């Protein structure tokens, strides 16, 4: 579904991504793992067209994403730090997103997370008054709102309380069963154990490996993702 071909991106002297190639298929749930500054967020931003790569190309359903924008109607994105217009209320932000997305493709609205996170009771709160965790809830609810084919979640559970992060994980499992492609970047490996089906490990802007979780367990002889990754990092 998504094919990334020889993508390089540098910020000044810093090489964020270096000849990065990968392909992601439908129905997979892929964990993006790597040390800080290994290029995970840059990779995600390139997929979304927020950062434009220096060389190489990315295709989405066979179409090059450069100068293309319609493909983004099939993506739900939950940023690492959700930043929203400060003067708007939660309700206004949600209505605005519904309004902006409506013309592109008439999709079913999926407001399960809005209900489960109980955002309806906070609907008139301004974005600047929200705590980090509540902003994360809004981001998560917006990512799932338009029933997208691809979900890109950048550190989804960071800042969420245990109850909410359980709700989010349940939702991720449910959407995975619906045959969606899900990309999760996270540092909390123990949370990924029962979620992901493949692991992508990035190091210094390069793809270290991209394996199914079973293959990874077999290669390392461990039974938990956290231990398997620790084993690889120590090598």
């Amino acid at each position: 579904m998504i094919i990334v071909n020889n993508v390089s991106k540098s910020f000044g002297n810093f090489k964020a991504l270096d000849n990065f190639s990968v392909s992601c298929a439908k129905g997979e749930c892929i964990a993006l793992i790597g040390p800080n500054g290994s290029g995970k967020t840059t990779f995600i931003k390139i997929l979304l067209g927020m950062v434009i790569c220096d060389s190489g190309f990315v295709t989405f359903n066979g179409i090059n994403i450069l100068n293309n924008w319609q493909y983004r109607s099939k993506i739900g994105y939950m940023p690492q730090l959700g930043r929203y217009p400060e003067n708007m209320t939660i309700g206004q932000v949600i209505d605005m997103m519904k309004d902006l997305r409506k013309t592109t493709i008439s999709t079913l609205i999926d407001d399960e997370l809005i209900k489960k996170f109980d955002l309806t009771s906070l609907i008139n709160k301004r974005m600047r008054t929200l705590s980090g965790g509540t902003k994360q809830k809004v981001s998560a609810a917006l990512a799932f709102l338009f029933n997208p084919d691809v979900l890109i979640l950048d550190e989804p559970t960071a800042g969420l309380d245990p109850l909410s992060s359980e709700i989010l994980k349940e939702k991720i499992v449910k959407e995975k069963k619906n045959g969606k492609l899900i990309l999760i970047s996270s540092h909390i490996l123990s949370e990924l154990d029962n979620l992901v089906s493949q692991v992508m490990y990035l190091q210094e802007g390069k793809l270290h490996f991209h394996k199914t979780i079973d293959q990874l367990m077999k290669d390392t002889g461990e039974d938990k993702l956290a231990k398997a990754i620790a084993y690889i990092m120590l090598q």
Partner: protein
Amino acid sequence: MKKVIKYVIIDIVRNKIIITYTLFLFIISISVFSLEDNSAKGLLGLLNIILIIVPLVSLVFSTIYIYNSAEFIELLVSQPLQRKAIWLSLFTGLATSMTFAFLIGAGIPVLIYQPDSIGAMMILMGILLSVIFVSIALLAVVKSRDKAKGIGVAILLWLYFSLIFDGFVLFLVFQFSDYPIEKIMISVSSLNPIDLGRILILLKLDISALMGYTGAVFSDFFGTTIGMLFSFFVLFIWIILPLWLSVINFKRKDL
């Protein structure tokens, strides 16, 4: 695109600065006209204020507004929207609000006290200058990531257009006063939209005789239909060119 424009305008109107600006223009215009018994004199006084204030507010407000909307722009870019459309919507939203602020603040008093072609020219110039400086602000913002630097550049640009450029022109006139440079002055003046606006209004006021031989050459050129068309064409270039350059830059910008 229409929807983004709608949200930008709602956001700007909710921001009280633009309302304060409108009120400020209104009070200044009314008081200038009431101070002078001759409305042409009032118009001349107002001209100088408008040529200073309109570009300054347009430039600085737009710059700060775009920097403060960084989150909003980031949110929009990750949505199925064209980057060009997002940027042009921001421009349209800002330009529309600045135009309406000027129309209400200065346009209404001018139409009350001076409802003729001179007043109309004045209003037209105010609108054009508002839009031109929104466009220049967008270019300044897209070129610099740092907020302090961007606002600094905007203020320097305003200083350049309203003070430094005039100094440069005066220098040119004194240095080359022995040569017939009046024709060159016409092309030099088109390098500054504020000067162009001032010349067009002064010629309408029919006081070009006060400007000596240069004034005569100016009225000879700008007074004709072709001269007028030329100057409006140049003013439109001043809107389109910075906007076009900023769109190209924004399309390739990393957010």
